[in-house]
């Protein structure tokens, strides 16, 4: 089989899905680490967060990583759509009665829907912060773009859509959580990384990661909204 053959193979698409997915998990960790600074109150927090935002948008190595992240997101989505389309074709006539809950978890059966919710969230999220930070007019603070103020203002009771934003973000993180709970360990399985001794560890880590990371993400807008009441 030529290399071309490998790329056409259904397994290669799975490898790509797994690699991009697992890479995005590491991105989530980095992103979370930065975001957690929003819990620091007052000017100290403002300074720290803005410095982090500056670092993320200008540091060369981070820039490379960010392009990798954009590419991963893109490939993850396109690959997901390609796989889903092929899978649909594999069963043109569906069952009259299908009891999926009997043999598989809800999240594993709904990765496409969950992924779509996350993608929609991503567009809105990037429009709100990323686009503004990169291309929009930003307030300045101590010589840095003041993303901290923008964020606080967005999740503020003053903002007429603030509450909706908070609820939306929490729901999106819920979708992310279900997506990760299946996706994390599934990525290892797709890459063939399975071992009677280590797989239980991977599965537990996946649960912790899939619940912990989105929970922390979701707690930020809730925290910001409540503290600004």
């Amino acid at each position: 089989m030529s290399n071309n053959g490998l790329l056409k193979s259904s397994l290669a698409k799975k490898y790509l899905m797994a690699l991009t997915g697992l890479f995005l998990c590491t991105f989530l960790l980095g992103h979370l680490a930065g975001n957690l600074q929003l819990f620091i109150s007052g000017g100290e927090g403002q300074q720290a967060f803005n410095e982090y935002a500056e670092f993320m948008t200008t540091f060369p190595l981070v820039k490379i990583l960010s392009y990798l992240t954009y590419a991963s997101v893109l490939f993850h989505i396109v690959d997901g759509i390609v796989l889903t389309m092929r899978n649909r074709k594999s069963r043109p006539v569906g069952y009259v009665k299908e009891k999926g809950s009997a043999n598989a978890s809800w999240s594993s059966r709904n990765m496409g829907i969950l992924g779509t919710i996350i993608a929609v969230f991503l567009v809105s999220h990037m429009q709100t912060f990323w686009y503004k930070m990169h291309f929009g007019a930003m307030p300045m603070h101590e010589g840095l773009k003041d993303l901290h103020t923008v964020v606080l203002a967005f999740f503020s009771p003053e903002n007429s859509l603030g509450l909706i934003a908070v609820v939306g973000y929490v729901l999106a993180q819920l979708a992310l959580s279900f997506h990760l709970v299946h996706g994390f360990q599934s990525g290892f399985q797709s890459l063939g990384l399975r071992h009677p001794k280590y797989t239980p560890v991977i599965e537990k880590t996946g649960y912790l990661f899939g619940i912990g990371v989105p929970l922390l993400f979701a707690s930020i807008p809730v925290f910001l909204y409540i503290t600004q009441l």
Partner: protein
Amino acid sequence: MDLTLNVWRQNGPEDKGRMETHPVSGVSPDMSFLEMIDMLNDQIIRDGGDPVAFDHDCREGICGMCSMFINGEAHGPGRGVTTCQLHMRSFKDGDSITIEPWRASAFPVVKDLAVDRSAFDRIIQSGGYVSVNTSGETLDANAIPVPKPQADEAFSAATCIGCGACVASCKNASAMLFVSAKVSQFALLPQGQPERASRVKRMVEQMDEEGFGNCTNTGACAVECPKGIDLSNIARMNRDFLKASAEGE
């Protein structure tokens, strides 16, 4: 007990097909599911109708021929059993039971509940063997010791009966569990090593060609597999294919 059966009827691959309802009464809990269908057919024939076509042969859970999707699950609600071993004591008087064929584009319906699973045979033909002639003039059987745990694992993979429940249960109609079981059996034995890389590549290629879907690791296949084939086989195949592709030929 008395039951209502909703059965899929389809005259051939080109027919659109439809559900048909049949009441059956006097079903004994000691009957196997197929004996209950026998009873239904006996009734239909005596009434001058066309009996429900279905595949079955050994009726002891090993030939892999029976293939019914019962109440939303391959081989019905039991675990570790084929349709022929499912007994009516798993149902209650008054139950309504929906019976459908395996559904996958790679398994076209022959008639009613019988489907064409020759795609599986073609996958085996693409490389699911050890290329050794049948002269009997090989090494003595005990010339190569195989550690017992490894031999046992190869055996577990080899117990696949090729029924297709994995494909039927998978929301993507993927055949990964079937293919990986055969790949694993040989990957785990010394006899399978010389062709290990080419085998996995050829078999995966054939699997894709047959139009099966992609594995999304839902694990439904392993839950519904009447022989309990494990998901570790799929991981092994993923690993072997990656390695074989990376090494090239």
